């Protein structure tokens, strides 16, 4: 009865943080269940952990205050941000170079004077160049000064999903409150608005106006400038251009080196990556920053698996062999939102997805393929199916086969369940997104 309403919030290797609805549940669980659960850790994980229960942030931030839920701390710690914000995406961690200085300066100005400097701020550039990073940095900066700021950060697809769900569920007032009673609206990838039904663009237009007129800051990102988003209504295009439109281009060599150094520093890797390796990576990976960072990780993984932790130019060459082969060609193919065919991807298969999801939920991959329908298994199984569909574009029948010979209608149901939960439960969305981006990194 006391553990049922809790949810795992995060695990950093030695501490598991579990969310509860209020302080009494946190205290009670701490006293009664922490020692018992911690006692299982050496068996389950191979090393001891501490288990801490605390009130979930979402509860603390509800407008209706609660006698047994302390309001959010005045100076938020890095872990206390509104759900989908990543603590890494701050201005401190944004490496400024020629290709992004205009965008960075505009973002800084917006963070200093939200709703006043440039409204809306429209950032555009190719995928993986730091648009989302800058956008979240604005949110971090504002929250650190005014902790009570209400931030809404969503992707355009989620905005559309929410809209459709609230039209179907007749909960438009909730939808409007969610998007209009906010101090800072961050919307990623607005290019996906193109060609969407009139009602989506219409609602977006009204949301935009409501916020704009009350002086709330809006930040948008896209892969191209507003005028080039075909199928976008003229009135939206013109509004997007009201404030500041700033572009981010691919970084130059020196800039790439600086980014890699920063990444190494951030992860405390400075002792292990020699300069010539950094330079080697920077010279050969020039598409985008995500790939740049992914390459470091790949080199490190290679080094620790095959070369006993020694990082040399040889190791780097070995690790990035495939990248080198097609370097020069557009490495953006099959980028993060693209739908790639299953056979075009190295390292990312249904098996790997099952393994990762099982690991995340603390179950076995065999369990996902079994007939068992306990709650502990159905949730990860559905997520794994969802990710197979999203990341691999696998056929429904194929997915059903891979998960213990399930019917394709079962798969459809699973996909719908996950999609619905992703759009309604922020913590769940974060978890799925984390898995998705982790798995995305496995693409060749």
């Amino acid at each position, binding site marked *: 009865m006391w553990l049922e309403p809790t949810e795992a919030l995060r695990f950093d290797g030695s501490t598991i943080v579990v969310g509860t609805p209020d302080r009494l549940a946190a205290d009670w669980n701490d006293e009664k269940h922490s020692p018992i659960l911690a006692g299982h850790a050496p068996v389950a994980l191979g090393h001891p952990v501490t288990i801490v229960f605390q009130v979930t942030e979402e509860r603390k931030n509800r407008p209706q205050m609660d006698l047994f839920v302390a309001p959010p701390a005045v100076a938020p710690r890095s872990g206390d941000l509104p759900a989908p914000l990543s603590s890494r995406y701050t201005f401190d961690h944004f490496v400024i170079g020629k290709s992004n200085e205009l965008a960075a300066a505009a973002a800084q100005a917006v963070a200093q004077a939200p709703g006043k400097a440039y409204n809306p701020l429209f950032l555009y550039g190719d995928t993986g160049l730091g648009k989302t990073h800058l956008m979240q940095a604005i949110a971090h900066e504002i929250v650190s000064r005014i902790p009570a700021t209400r931030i809404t950060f969503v992707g355009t697809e989620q905005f559309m999903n929410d809209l459709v769900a609230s039209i179907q569920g007749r909960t438009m007032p909730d939808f409007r*409150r969610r998007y209009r*009673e906010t101090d800072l609206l961050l919307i990623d990838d607005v290019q996906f608005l193109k060609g969407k039904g009139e009602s989506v663009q219409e609602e977006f237009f009204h949301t935009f106006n409501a916020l704009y007129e009350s002086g709330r800051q809006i930040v948008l990102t896209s892969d191209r400038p507003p005028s080039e988003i075909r199928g976008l209504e003229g009135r939206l295009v013109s509004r997007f251009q009201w404030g500041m439109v700033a572009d981010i281009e691919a970084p130059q060599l020196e800039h790439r080196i600086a980014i890699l150094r920063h990444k190494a520093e951030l992860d405390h890797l400075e002792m292990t990556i020699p300069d010539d390796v950094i330079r080697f990576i920077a010279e050969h990976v020039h598409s985008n920053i995500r790939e740049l960072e992914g390459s470091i990780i790949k080199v490190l993984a290679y080094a620790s698996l095959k070369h006993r932790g020694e990082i040399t130019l040889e190791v780097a060459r070995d690790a990035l062999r495939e990248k080198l082969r097609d370097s020069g060609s557009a490495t953006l193919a099959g980028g993060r939102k693209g739908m790639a065919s299953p056979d075009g991807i190295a390292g990312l298969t249904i098996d790997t997805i099952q393994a990762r999801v099982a690991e995340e939920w603390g179950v076995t991959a065999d369990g996902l393929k079994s007939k068992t329908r306990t709650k502990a298994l159905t949730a990860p199984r559905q997520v794994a199916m969802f990710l197979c569909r999203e990341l691999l574009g696998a056929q429904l029948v194929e997915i059903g086969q891979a998960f213990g010979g399930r019917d394709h209608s079962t798969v459809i149901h699973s996909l719908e369940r996950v999609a619905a939960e992703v759009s309604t439960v922020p913590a769940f969305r974060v978890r799925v997104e984390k898995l998705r981006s982790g798995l995305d990194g496995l693409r060749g």
Partner: protein
Amino acid sequence: MRFTISREKLQEGLAAVAASVPTKTTLPVLANILVETTERGIRFSGTDLDIAVSAEVTADVEIAGAVTIPAKKLTDIAREMLPAPVRIAAANEQRVTIECGRSKFKLLGIPRDEFPSFPAVRFEDSWRVKSAELHKLISHTTFAVSNEESRPILNGVLWALRQDYMRMVATNGHRLAKMQVPIERSTAGANDLIVPPKALEQVRRLFPPAEELEIARGDNHLGFRSPMAAVFTRLIEGPYPDYEQVIPRDNNRIAVVDKDALVGALKRMSIVASDQTHRVRLSFNAGSVRFSVQTPDLGEAQDELAIRYTGDPLEIGFNASYLLEILRYLPTDEVKLTFKGPEQAATIEPEGWDDPAQFLCLVMPLRLID
């Protein structure tokens, strides 16, 4: 089993226990009422396994026995019957016949062995409580319990017994109601019981205020009984939160308001307030309180009342329905509200209440948008 009972007594007995019969159940016998003969007449019992209720009425018993009869059908029959004596008999403790005047029914019952036995609560160590005092506590506090599944403790009402007083506390985290009444020196030890509000509702319905009740605690159950009726309930496993800790002691902004005027203003504001949040803004100043609501896509409204107010001006938001609900249970014409700040608990109490009981309500603010 065979007995004759007046239609009125039959209806009285059934009405007492009908509410304890679950409408949906996976265990068929729970949809039945247990009918047993006793020395004084007939005892009716119903239970949903969490709460069990029984009531005795007078009847002429010819042959002792017991059977369970479908509650809904028996109640419907008792309602439609002509006002004449009713003869009820059960053969093999299963086939039930009911006769009244020239009406005749045959129903299929379930043997009493299948009916769950009542929780083991031993009344040897019981204590006594005046029903009227219990009524008073129940009717002023149970409204505030939580029905949020994720907070099981708050789904119960705390009944705290001490040597010279007893109190009840209920809260859903957003608002809290606490009432305390002095009692004559109790023989029972101090006891903190967390009782499901449904059980308390049964207690209030079943026992008239004039009676004195006997109460006893089992391991995980609580029993209430009078000579003619009994209620048993499962207790919720504690501990109850430290509510004393959240009761503000240093609220320094104090308003005294005419209750009906306040209710009127809040009801007017509620019309235009958001259906979801019921958010209303109150601005307290020396001599007056201004109300305002603003709801996107709907409109806005303002109102103002003359009040007695001491302290610095204050802007604070509340869920209007929480305030209205509390005001409904306040017994006096004037009410006192105290505040500390826009994000701290407010208190609401009766003002000038000439009663030995103490009544205090808390309500947490709703954050204002800007």
